[in-house]
């Protein structure tokens, strides 16, 4: 059976139709969270393992809540508390968990391709909750859902993604997903953070913030973590925020109703000025709410439901 399951590994290999169907499904699931009783029996009796080998607060809680609202049984395992610290390999951990016969394993891992590896060796549907700098497909979907809700569609919209593109899985899923749905994607950051041939993913690349933001429908800011970088990619937070950060002056170049997005957690004052993060154009909390709906849709889809 291995390999025959329905997985969500990446947006890169999905078609525009498949993505749209998942977004439609997420729209219907978002209603559930607005009801007084926020639970449906859809996945009753199903088992979902949340295997988070890398620290995560919002993605993990979002997946957990999504599973619970669908009435699935959940098992949460995180890197720091598991036998990984005792030297167990990812595959051994996953095979042990698979012995419980879960329907879905949601995996967050620091290595690109880890979910693909699991999908070939473990008999469960694998959902990628972020693999290294490769993809974060549910983040990409929730970003697209948010844009679709606010901008009345994605095709033809100009979306600027600004930050450390090279090390960002959010950027990769965003670029490929948005490009498939016809958006005009511009990525922006210091040249040290723009990876080789990034434009082949379906975007325009620039180090000029003005070019990126001008007439944008959406500006998506990425988290900058200087302390986590292996090498020197920019001189200081101070210079970064001045040249690449989003403040009110820079945002004024965008369309008047331009959305401000951020995958969180925000470094206030580095990539995003507080007044912009909390301003009227910010849809950051909508992203969080949509994350829940998207993850319900993805779990439902991977458990065999029709998209």
């Amino acid at each position, binding site marked *: 059976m291995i390999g025959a399951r329905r997985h969500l590994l990446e947006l890169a290999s999905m078609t525009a139709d498949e993505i749209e169907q998942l977004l439609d499904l997420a729209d219907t699931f978002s209603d559930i969270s607005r009801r007084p009783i926020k639970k449906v029996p859809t996945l009753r009796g199903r088992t979902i393992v949340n295997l988070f080998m890398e620290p995560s607060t919002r993605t993990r809680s979002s997946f957990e809540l999504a599973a619970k609202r669908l009435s699935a049984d959940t098992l949460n395992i995180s890197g720091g508390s598991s036998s990984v610290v005792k030297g167990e390999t990812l595959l051994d951990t996953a095979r042990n968990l698979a012995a419980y016969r879960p329907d879905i394993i949601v995996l967050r891992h620091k*290595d*690109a391709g880890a979910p693909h*590896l699991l999908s070939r060796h473990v008999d469960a549907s694998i959902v990628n909750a972020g693999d290294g*700098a490769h993809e974060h497909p549910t983040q990409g979907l929730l970003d697209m859902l948010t844009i679709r809700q606010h901008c009345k569609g994605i095709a033809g919209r100009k979306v600027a993604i600004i930050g450390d593109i090279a090390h960002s899985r959010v950027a*990769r899923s965003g670029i490929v997903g948005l490009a498939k749905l016809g958006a005009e994607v511009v990525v922006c950051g210091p040249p040290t953070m723009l990876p*080789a*041939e990034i434009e*082949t993913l379906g975007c325009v690349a620039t180090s000029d913030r003005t070019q990126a933001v001008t007439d944008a429908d959406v500006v998506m800011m990425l988290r900058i973590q200087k302390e986590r970088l292996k090498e020197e990619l920019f001189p200081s937070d101070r210079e970064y925020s001045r040249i690449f950060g989003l403040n009110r002056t820079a945002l004024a170049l965008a369309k008047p109703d331009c959305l401000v997005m951020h995958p969180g957690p925000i470094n206030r004052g580095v990539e995003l000025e507080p007044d912009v993060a909390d301003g009227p154009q910010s849809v950051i909390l909508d992203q969080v709410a949509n994350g829940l709906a998207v993850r319900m849709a993805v779990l439902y889809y991977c458990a065999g439901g029709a998209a």
Partner: protein
Amino acid sequence: MSGQRIWIRGGTVVCPASGFEGPGVVEIVGDTIAAVHPGTGPSNTPGRVIDADGAVVAPGFVDLHAHLGEPGDEYKEDLETAGQAAVRGGFTSVCASPDTHPVNDSRAFTEYLVRRGAATAAARILPIGALTVGCEGKRLTEMYDLCAAGAVALGDGQRSVADAGLFRRAMEYAKAVGVPVFEFPEDASLSLGGVMHEGRVSTQLGLRGVPCAAEDVVVHRAIELVRHTGARVHLGPISTHGAVMAVKRAKEQGLPLTCAVAAAQLHLLDASIAESWSPHLHVRPPLRSESHREALRVGLQEGVIDAVTSNHRPQGAVDKEVPFARAEPGMSGLQTTLGLVLRLVEQGILSLSDAVARLAVGPADVLGMAAGRLTAGAKADVVVFDPSVKVRVESAVLASRSKNTPFLGQALPGRVLATLVGGRVAYGEDDEVKL
């Protein structure tokens, strides 16, 4: 000359060094080639006959870059299993990379390798001594001692000496010792954390790339230091268009520079990683894109590249059953090299004679050794193979302790029928193959 007499009859003798290519008989006495007779040779001769009807009789292959596991990584490979893999792949001499655990940086260690090799390996084991102590790039090794014990070249395995000043002194010193310096062309600060070719595919997969510049910078530095010191330097394995161009120019200028390419590099591309995420494709140097592969093929055709190597670096299953970036780089290569080179012959990229040259006399000349030749008086290191038979690469046929190769399941041309090392049948008629 005394000892057993062997006649290898009925085959097509291909010896690029002497220019002999055609029907012929190789006459061996003891551990030495007595003569190569054109045509059917003398008849009714006493001695043992190896029937090479329809096959190619070539000088035994010489491998410049192989990691043999012993000591330290015996769960991946040891000299015995590597030796078996070598002779099954047509190699009669295999250089042993010094970056074992511990590193081969002393006379005692080299003597141990020579002794162990002679006792357990079916092929000749040629130790490469470390250029710097511990391959750490800080202090010079006792090079005279290493070479007196049997080291055929000096290098730091898959490390380049970062300190250009020290590298210069090492080259000067090695020149006096009389052996080539092996330089692995990868600048560690530029390749930092990289696991595949930097380009479109690494960007798509979010894997950290090794830019071509990491290789080209080291190649250009080596060339200028060769110009300055006059020392013999061998670069390998190389993987970039820039390296081929730079070596070509340096050779035109008469500099004593050589280079080798890994057989798999002549076929596989970085794009395959996006299809499978297979950790078997995680190798050093990394698989690169189409234009680099094309440059390597042309370089091989033109003789800019002297040798094809197995770049044998077997890894255990535990080293490969992990996400791509975490996998130990390297593949088992001794038994697929001939097939991959013959595939180039099938594709019209290399002549059969050039294919044999890059596997035998080419690498032998890099080392300044008399091997790789079928001429009277040469050591009787001979391989007999049938290029028209395809062999499926399967775990069961791989003698290496590690079966990690991306070619598993593929049929490669070239069946090795017999391999003779010093006149002794190291692989062949007494094994599963009947001649």
